[in-house]
């Protein structure tokens, strides 16, 4: 009997039975289908980095000629995406300049104009919202951040019994975020600004976890900026549009401040609570404030991060 069945189920010479062939091919086909399905999300990846961007060198290793090419590439990408040719620059820190920010807690009325001016200046995503500045409302008589509230929305500010404390990147002298970055995509420059190379960031979010001020923001989705709201004055380490999956944060408006101008949040503050300048220049406003005013805190001073952002009070 076995001898009689054999020729009917086996094709001549190959030694593969019909059944095992069908079984193997079904398994193989389903395996391939599953692989293809698991890669299906890639279909929706539309801002895949170009080869040029993928092979780009580390910021500090770029020669001026490399940088010129990179800036041209960014300008083309932005123009392709937003239909507007931006002016992208790579601004280097100036000699003999160390930036310091001072914020007058007596004056701040908590109107959040700085928050939205910052969004406008720095091409932050409108939806989902990414905002570098978070204005905390605190009851009088305490600096306990556990009592802070940032979703306050009364009819009118200031509200009696409260003061307001805007918090943004403190540009620490001893930044925790820089220490934890595994790829050195964020570093402190000589003028005191901690910057991020958005092309080098791998999006691990260690820096976000390390920052005690919750100053870093992550692009979970592709940032969305309406085309008519794009600010075309850009800097490589500043406000050029970010990709999905990279960190960003306040950089003291490098595209403005390294050009000698004031940051956007300062210019719009309706009560003049924000002061910025070169602390190494004894005639600057910030040097005057640190010399003569009651500079009350560096936020979370006890952590030893030594912020360059000072909160002070008028008498």
């Amino acid at each position: 009997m076995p001898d009689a069945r054999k020729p009917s189920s086996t094709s001549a010479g190959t030694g593969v039975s019909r059944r095992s062939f069908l079984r193997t091919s079904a398994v193989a086909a389903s395996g391939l289908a599953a692989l293809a399905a698991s890669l299906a999300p890639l279909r929706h990846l539309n801002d895949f980095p170009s080869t040029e961007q993928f092979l780009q060198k580390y910021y500090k290793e770029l020669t001026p000629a490399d940088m010129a090419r990179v800036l041209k590439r960014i300008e083309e990408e932005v123009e392709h995406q937003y239909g507007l040719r931006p002016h992208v620059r790579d601004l280097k820190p100036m000699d003999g300049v160390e930036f310091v920010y001072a914020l007058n807690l007596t004056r701040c009325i908590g109107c959040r104009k700085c928050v939205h001016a910052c969004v406008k200046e720095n091409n932050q995503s409108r939806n989902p919202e990414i905002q570098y500045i978070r204005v905390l409302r605190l009851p009088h008589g305490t600096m306990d951040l556990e009592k802070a509230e940032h979703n306050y929305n009364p009819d009118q500010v200031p509200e009696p019994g409260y003061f307001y404390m805007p918090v943004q990147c403190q540009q620490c002298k001893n930044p925790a975020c820089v220490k934890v970055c595994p790829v050195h995509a964020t570093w402190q420059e000589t003028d005191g600004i901690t910057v991020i190379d958005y092309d080098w960031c791998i999006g691990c979010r260690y820096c976000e976890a390390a920052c005690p001020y919750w100053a870093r923001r992550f692009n979970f989705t592709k940032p969305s900026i309406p085309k008519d709201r794009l600010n075309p004055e850009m800097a490589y380490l500043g406000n050029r549009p970010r990709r999905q999956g990279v960190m960003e944060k306040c950089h003291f408006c490098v595209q403005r401040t390294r050009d000698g101008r004031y940051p956007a949040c300062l210019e719009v503050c309706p009560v003049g609570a924000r002061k910025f300048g070169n602390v190494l220049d004894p005639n600057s406003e910030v040097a005057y404030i640190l010399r003569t005013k009651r500079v009350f805190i560096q936020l979370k001073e006890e952590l030893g991060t030594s912020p360059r952002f000072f909160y002070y009070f008028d008498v």
Partner: protein
Amino acid sequence: MSNDTKTSTVLMALAGTFVLLALVLATRSTVLPPPKPFPLVDPALLVPTTMRTSYLQLIHAKADLSDFDCYACHEKGKPPTLRFDTNHNIVVPKEHSDIVMGHGRHNRNNNCFNCHDEQNLQVLQTRDGRELKLEESPPLCGSCHGPTYRDWEAGAHGRTGGYWDRTRGELTRRLCVDCHNPHSPKILPRNPFPPPHLLHPVPSSPELTGAHNRGGRTLLSAAATTKSEPRCSLELAADRNVRAPLLSVTNRHGQNCPRSTEAFPASTYHA
């Protein structure tokens, strides 16, 4: 059952699972639904204009200055008389009804000629007899507000703009009266810009709100602490029971809460 059949059964079952998975994954869209649109802030509100328009700004804007021609109505060489009521508050004549007097503690700086010159109404006078043009008022303010004037001169009080690096460009300075109304210098309260919106609507079941702990907790504390406006706090209290509308700030922004339209009309947020 032989080992061979067992293996093939397992393999077939696995293959079936894979096919099913493949079908499900291929047909189901892996892209998140488009996020709910947030109202955009009108960029016209984000320009560095001052709270009010001073005489100097009017001059720069080449505006109509006929309102400042005192001697169109007043008679030259005849100082106007001031009238006070029984509480020693000045009676503002109806020709000047746009002026609200509220300068000094208990509005006690209410004599026009503390600052205006009664002999020449077009100019200001300091107590030590200096005459100042209307657009050069800061030294006059400084004659009482010394420390503030000192800070202002150093750039620490008041608004600045333009260039911090004086070698590269102009520093914009603002006068006292660009922000303060000289007759009533206190800065008035204003509407705040909208608070941060959350990325996703908050799930209604309470056990899921842990993921949004930050927002949820602080908003509840907002509900607990906002007592100044009875209407708004009532709404917040109502929202407390239903989590979802509590976090959709735009719902109550400008619609439920009455807002003054003085500085930022609420409707302008919904551009």
